[in-house]
């Protein structure tokens, strides 16, 4: 047996062990045992994925009783990369869950579901035929649904989130199943090597649309993202981290599997369609995130944004490859993959950080937080670094990925100085503009998230009494932040490795230069983050020295009332909140967000001109949910009420139905 086969088998074994321990262990030991075993599963997956990414081959053959080929698990390099992403997030989440879970989150059911979810996510990228792919996909969905529903008994919103999640997951699954069915019918096989068909044929087009709907739903793309703002905030934080950091990437893997391996060289409209969906998701996601004041809703919508950018890169690479701009196409695809990797690092850290805040304060509404930086320094540092990653600020992972995407786009419009096509020369500037607006709004979003939660003064009792979380949770947060920084400081080796997964000639696309810098030889661009750090350190020396000198001579004073213009110290309630921070943006994008405002003015009894109090309520709802899904759901509901008369429970009526059916069958047969 090969190393990869052994790794996969060990994972399955550890998974079974974790399920057994969850069922048998005493409640006091359950979380610790489960956490350790899940960490081991993730570490095994990490090693297996890494060796697959480095080019090791081999796999596992699982014979099944059904009259089909055996299930074949043998990840290629691309699969290895995604196993690596999933298990990296898995390590963070498992460590964290060891001490974060309590109450219903630490129930027997939840700890049975956790290893099932983790192993399921590992098996999807390892699958080499559609049957094992779909099976692993369903195991993953099942595990995550159970984990989400951990707390359904005490909170009604969790149950509603569970229904949305199940419905949308099954919709995704249906589309993927249909896509594979179309491909299998056209090609006559189920294994990925047999599934390839002519990309121009109608079957390929139908399959592409079905796959885009299916995988797009899992990857939280607009308009199939409606489950995200309900599910990710309601799930326990370590589960949201796993879902957003890892599970969503499986949707990306599916899209890559279709667009790069099964149906490469599709027509131009495939690339344009993916770019449109990706761009719309990026803009809509970040706009909703920037106006949200619920920390976890904000992070959930930001996931939609990031996945939108990944798909934008994928679409651009497909479009450019069609015009033979290979260097730019490869760079765009590597950028999309780097975005996926870096998103896994920073978003799981952010969700775990949000979990730490909830753990310490019980609040996830930013308007009631504040001043946590002094009270929870480790959480603040990790959350801050991950926020920089999400805002694509230099020396974090997010920056490198976005830089590479922009480079590939601005060099994609031309090939050897000639314009490649009208479509590309309109699509590329629009894509750059979308990325720029997205990046700008992401900056605002994460300045808001970090600044309101961790800086200034506490806005509630709960925030004022916050204490730092237990050491294991701190360790997991610190590890996540370390990933974000390491990927940002040493992007070269990572990018070179990632390039192997998609290009037959990887060194032409991406090379590692200097101390971990990255270079795109095909389009002539270089970035060396370590040099940037060295330069910053050099220019910072005189500033810091002068601060030390002047600090010794003129020490600072801390006062309660520095510049209280009116004379009395402004109360913490008077600070800007997350809602007020986003208010200018809500006004600017009023037409897109369509916020509902409710202003109630109570006048003083004696005079209409004097106001006793004013109440303002503003809600920003999801436009897609209210305008697209509600009407459809209402239609079904009405139809359901009508159909209820047909099946009203009367046995006579049912018998007459069977009789009528029998008659019809007999008539049809006799004709």
């Amino acid at each position, binding site marked *: 047996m090969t190393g990869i086969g052994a790794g996969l088998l060990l994972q399955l074994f550890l998974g079974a062990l974790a399920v057994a321990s969850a069922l048998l262990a005493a409640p006091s030991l359950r979380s610790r045992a489960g956490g350790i075993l899940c960490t081991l599963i993730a570490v095994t997956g990490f090693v297996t994925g890494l060796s697959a990414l480095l080019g090791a081959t081999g796999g596992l053959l699982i014979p099944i009783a059904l009259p089909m080929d055996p299930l074949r698990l043998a990840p290629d390099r691309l699969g290895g990369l995604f196993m690596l992403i999933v298990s990296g997030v898995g390590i963070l989440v498992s460590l964290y869950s060891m001490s974060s879970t309590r109450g219903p989150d630490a129930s027997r059911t939840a700890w049975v579901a956790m290893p099932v979810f983790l192993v399921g996510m590992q098996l999807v990228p390892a699958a080499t035929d559609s049957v094992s792919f779909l099976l692993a996909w369903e195991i993953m969905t099942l595990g995550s649904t159970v984990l989400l529903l951990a707390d359904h008994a005490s909170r009604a919103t969790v149950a509603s989130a569970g229904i949305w999640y199940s419905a949308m997951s099954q919709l995704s699954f249906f589309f993927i199943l249909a896509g594979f069915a179309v491909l299998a019918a056209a090609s006559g096989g189920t294994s990925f090597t047999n599934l390839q068909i002519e990309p121009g044929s109608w079957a390929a087009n139908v399959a592409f649309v079905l796959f885009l709907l299916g995988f797009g739903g899992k990857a939280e793309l607009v308009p199939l993202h409606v489950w995200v703002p309900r599910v990710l905030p309601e799930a326990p934080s370590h589960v949201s981290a796993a879902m957003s950091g890892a599970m969503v990437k499986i949707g990306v893997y599916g899209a890559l599997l279709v667009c790069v391996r099964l149906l490469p060289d599709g027509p131009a409209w495939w690339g344009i369609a993916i770019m449109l969906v990706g761009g719309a998701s990026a803009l809509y996601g970040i706009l909703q995130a920037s106006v949200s004041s619920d920390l976890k809703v904000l992070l959930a919508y930001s996931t939609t944004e990031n996945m939108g950018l990944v798909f934008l890169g994928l679409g651009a690479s497909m479009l450019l490859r069609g015009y033979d701009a290979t260097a730019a196409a490869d760079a765009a695809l590597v950028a999309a993959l780097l975005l996926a990797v870096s998103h896994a690092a920073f978003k799981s850290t952010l969700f775990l950080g949000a979990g730490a805040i909830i753990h310490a304060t019980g609040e996830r509404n930013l308007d009631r937080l504040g001043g946590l*930086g002094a009270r929870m320094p480790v959480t603040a540092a990790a959350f801050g670094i991950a926020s920089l990653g999400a805002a694509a600020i230099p020396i974090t992972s997010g920056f490198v990925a976005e830089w590479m995407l922009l480079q590939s786009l601005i060099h994609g419009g*031309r090939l050897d100085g000639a314009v490649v096509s009208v479509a590309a020369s309109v699509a590329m500037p629009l894509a750059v503009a979308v990325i720029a607006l997205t990046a700008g709004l992401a900056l605002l979003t994460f300045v808001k998230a970090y600044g309101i939660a961790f800086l200034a003064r506490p806005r509630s009792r709960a925030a004022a009494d916050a204490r730092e979380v237990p050491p294991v949770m701190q360790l997991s947060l610190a590890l996540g932040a370390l990933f974000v920084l390491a990927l940002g400081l040493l992007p070269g080796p990572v990018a070179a490795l990632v390039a192997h997964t998609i290009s037959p000639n990887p060194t032409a696309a991406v090379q590692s230069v200097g101390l971990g810098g990255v270079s795109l030889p095909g389009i002539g661009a270089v970035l060396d983050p370590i040099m940037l750090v060295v330069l910053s350190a050099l220019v910072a020396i005189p500033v810091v020295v002068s601060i030390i000198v002047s600090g010794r001579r003129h020490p600072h004073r801390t006062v309660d009332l520095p510049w209280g213009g009116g004379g009395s110290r402004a109360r913490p309630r008077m600070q800007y909140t997350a809602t007020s921070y986003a208010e200018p943006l809500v006004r600017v994008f009023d037409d897109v967000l369509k916020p509902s405002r409710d202003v109630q003015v109570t006048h003083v009894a004696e005079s209409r001109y004097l106001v006793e109090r004013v109440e303002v309520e503003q809600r920003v709802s999801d436009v897609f949910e209210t305008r697209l899904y509600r009407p459809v759901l209402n239609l079904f509901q009405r139809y359901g009420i009508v159909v209820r008369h047909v099946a009203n429970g009367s046995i006579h009526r049912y018998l007459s139905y069977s009789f009528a059916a029998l008659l019809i069958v007999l008539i049809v047969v006799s004709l």
Partner: protein
Amino acid sequence: MNAALSAIIIAFVQVVLFVFLAPLLMGVIRQVRATIEGRAGAGIWQPWRDVRKLLAKNPVRAEGSSWMLRAGPVALMVSSLLLCVLLPLVGTIPFPSIPSDLFVIVSVMLIGVVALALVGLDGGTAFGGMGSSRHMTVAALVEPTLLLAVYALSIPAQTSTISAIVETRLFSPAVIISPVSVLALVALSIAIMAETARLPIDNPGTHLELTMLHEAMTLEASGRDLAWLEVGSWLKLAALLGLVSNLVVPWGVVTEFSALGLALGVVSITVKVLVLGVLLSVGEIFLAKVRLFQVPELLAGSFALAFLAVTASYLVV
């Protein structure tokens, strides 16, 4: 002389020159405005005196404010100094492993934007938050214009390295007056006005709460914290004006290292930045600050210009 060494010398000269030049530029801008408005003015050295005064004071910090109030101003200062290192101001000889890539430069500038916004929030007052919120909204809306203008400028040179762009303009001046370049430069200038909090987006001379953007964020800072915030912002303005002037009038910039060339480069960029500062100041006399909620319209207009510039360079040329 080898390229790396000459790049280091030029970067060093640029930093020293701009640290000296930035307060002077502010002094000139304020003095010109005062003279035109019929006031005596404080003289062109006043910003220098202000900085010296601020550095010699004990900073006062509010209870409950965090390390951000200390680190933020330094981060802004470092980001502005990095701009002076990376932009081709005196010479166009880039560092080999970190060329003056425009996307990197924009991101370095954003570090300063973020630091300032966080300092504004950290004071724990309504003013700071208000300034921070408006500042970030404007920064977010400026970003598309900025990157598209950069994109348009990068097309003739076929690279996003700003040194190469300036050299292309120096060796084939016809590029400068092409419609694409003019559109891109106008868009870039509007974006820079917004980024550096000048009229018509922000009024640098006001302390009226309804109109403040930049000033509101620095209200809680004092002593050396305030000094770094001020000098950092001035440096950013000076460096960006230097960039625009080198894009419009690239002559005088050092492309081959020599002592005489360096001296000429220093003189030419000083003159260019100061002249542009005077023009800016005169221009601002005729402008009023637009309402905050009309700023997006202005920025949408500049975005349209930048977008036209990019598509025109593909479809028309």
